[in-house]
């Protein structure tokens, strides 16, 4: 019953019941991890070292680390009962601002984008938490706003800012430690820290509490619901911003078209990981499994070679539908 702290459904103890409900809860919580293991086994048997080679696994890890950052923030937002559609655009804006800010050194390339992203998250949070506007609409607006700003800063994409190769940031973005890319290590460190925050701190518990129903109970119990919401949106924007900075560091430039559809990919990873889109139940461990599963499937379809990469999304979409179907069935069964 005591699993890793990141994989717990509820912060104080996982939902358990008897027999079938317990099984259903297990499937919900660890389903993505189980399928991930199966897919990895299948991939290793089919493609051998072209899949399991260090180069390929490193590429998957690097690709997954950016999505993991975004999806970690998204997990907090969804658990609190919200949604953040702006993260893909925020990631692009962050990359552009990192490249723009690199003229003031690494500090400028990191602080400028994170400050702007934090501000966007603050606006999201205040409009949703204090003004009580719908998260979908508010973050749709900031999605447009941030993407537009990214294009404006780059003169409609015509002006490409380059991060100098000798900048500390570039070296960090491209460095490897023991064969693992530094962005991967940063993403993992952030993920572990987020796990501690979600499962072991007051704030984490309150995120779950605010995600119950529409936050009505949390308000009656005197929880600072608005403040909790503000914080999850700031966190989400900052993590998307961090992903943008790391991508810019790795590619030495920032493109305003970066991260299109990333918000949906992140939401898909969170939901595949067993977190309920209605909020209040889920885990970061599931999100990690969801992120890896999406990225491994993408990689395997690329390995096939004869399949167009468009099939990645066909498979991911099919998978998402299956997960939601299973979740709905389990939820119905548990209520009986």
């Amino acid at each position: 019953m005591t699993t890793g702290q990141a994989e717990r459904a509820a912060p104080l103890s996982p939902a358990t019941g008897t027999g079938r409900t317990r099984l259903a809860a297990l499937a919900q919580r660890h389903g993505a991890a189980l399928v991930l293991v199966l897919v990895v086994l299948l991939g290793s048997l089919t493609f051998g070292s072209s899949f399991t080679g260090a180069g390929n696994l490193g590429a998957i890890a690097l690709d997954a680390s950016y999505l993991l950052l975004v999806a970690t923030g998204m997990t907090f937002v969804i658990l609190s009962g919200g949604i953040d559609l702006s993260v893909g655009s925020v990631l692009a804006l962050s990359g552009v601002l990192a490249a723009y800010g690199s003229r003031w050194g690494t500090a400028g390339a990191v602080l400028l984008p994170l400050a702007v992203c934090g501000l966007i998250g603050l606006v999201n949070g205040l409009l949703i938490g204090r003004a009580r506007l719908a998260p979908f609409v508010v973050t749709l607006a900031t999605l447009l706003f941030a993407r537009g700003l990214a294009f404006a800063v780059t003169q409609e994409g015509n002006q490409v800012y380059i991060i100098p190769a000798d900048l500390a940031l570039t070296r960090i973005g491209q460095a490897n430690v023991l064969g693992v890319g530094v962005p991967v290590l940063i993403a993992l460190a952030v993920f572990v820290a987020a796990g501690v925050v979600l499962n072991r701190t007051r704030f984490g518990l309150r995120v779950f509490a605010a995600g119950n129903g529409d936050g009505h109970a949390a308000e009656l119990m005197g929880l600072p619901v608005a403040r909790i919401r503000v914080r999850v949106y700031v966190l989400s924007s900052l993590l998307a911003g961090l992903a943008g900075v790391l991508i810019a560091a790795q590619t030495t430039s920032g493109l305003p078209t970066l991260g299109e559809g990333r918000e949906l990919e992140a939401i898909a990873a969170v939901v595949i990981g067993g977190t309920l889109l209605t909020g209040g139940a889920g885990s970061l461990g599931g999100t990690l499994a969801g992120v890896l599963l999406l990225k491994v499937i993408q990689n395997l379809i690329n390995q096939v070679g004869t399949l167009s990469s468009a099939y990645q999304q066909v498979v991911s979409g099919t998978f998402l539908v299956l997960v939601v179907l299973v979740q709905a069935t389990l939820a119905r069964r548990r209520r009986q």
Partner: protein
Amino acid sequence: MTPALAVRGATKRFGAVLALDGVDLAVFPGEVLALLGDNGAGKSTLIKCISGVHRLDSGSIEMGGVAVTMGSPAAARALGIETVYQDLALFDNLDPVANFYAGREIAGPRWLPRGLRLLRRRDMSRATGELLTRLQVGIADPHATVGLMSGGQRQAIAVARAAAFASKVVILDEPTAALGLRESRRVLDLILRLREEGHAVIVISHAMDHVIEIADRAAVLRRGRKVGEMRPTPDNRQAIVSLIVGGDS
């Protein structure tokens, strides 16, 4: 004796509707006060004003003789008032321990800034277990989320949560409305235990038998006004009922 809680001239208006019209109410430590009235009489509005959900348009609230303002549910809780709402306001997605402590978590160590302190789950778990034992509330599976529990268990958890943290006043809105016979019995016993422990208890109920059994005093509201107070006994049951529905009928 100073009342634990006293409301004077409570008036609350929602648009054109006068929900409360100069209501006076007092409840003493170790007393169960039943708040009676037909639907729309203003009972729920009154307790929501006391528990900080609504604000009074005019009138005052005193606790232990000192005037207080209930700016928010958190403010009322901080003053020692706990409320069991009709919908219970439980976190269905969390277990009983988290339901007890959400909003006043035990965390440490103290030298860390508040935001960085880690939850002391074992302490919270133990305190919850002790409280449930003291109140004789049996929970079949203390690690299950409360959304999966029976109506009686959920009600018991909500009442126990209020009992755990209320230092002065416990308010219960229709605590037995959705319960079966045996479950009602448990909740009534729980209310009596709160009285023994010296809490001032306000109960809204339509179940006259329960009121007669547990309440020391009954206050009747009709159309936002307090129309009478009485000792609820089997003998004046009829008198109370006619106060509720209107004297002349």
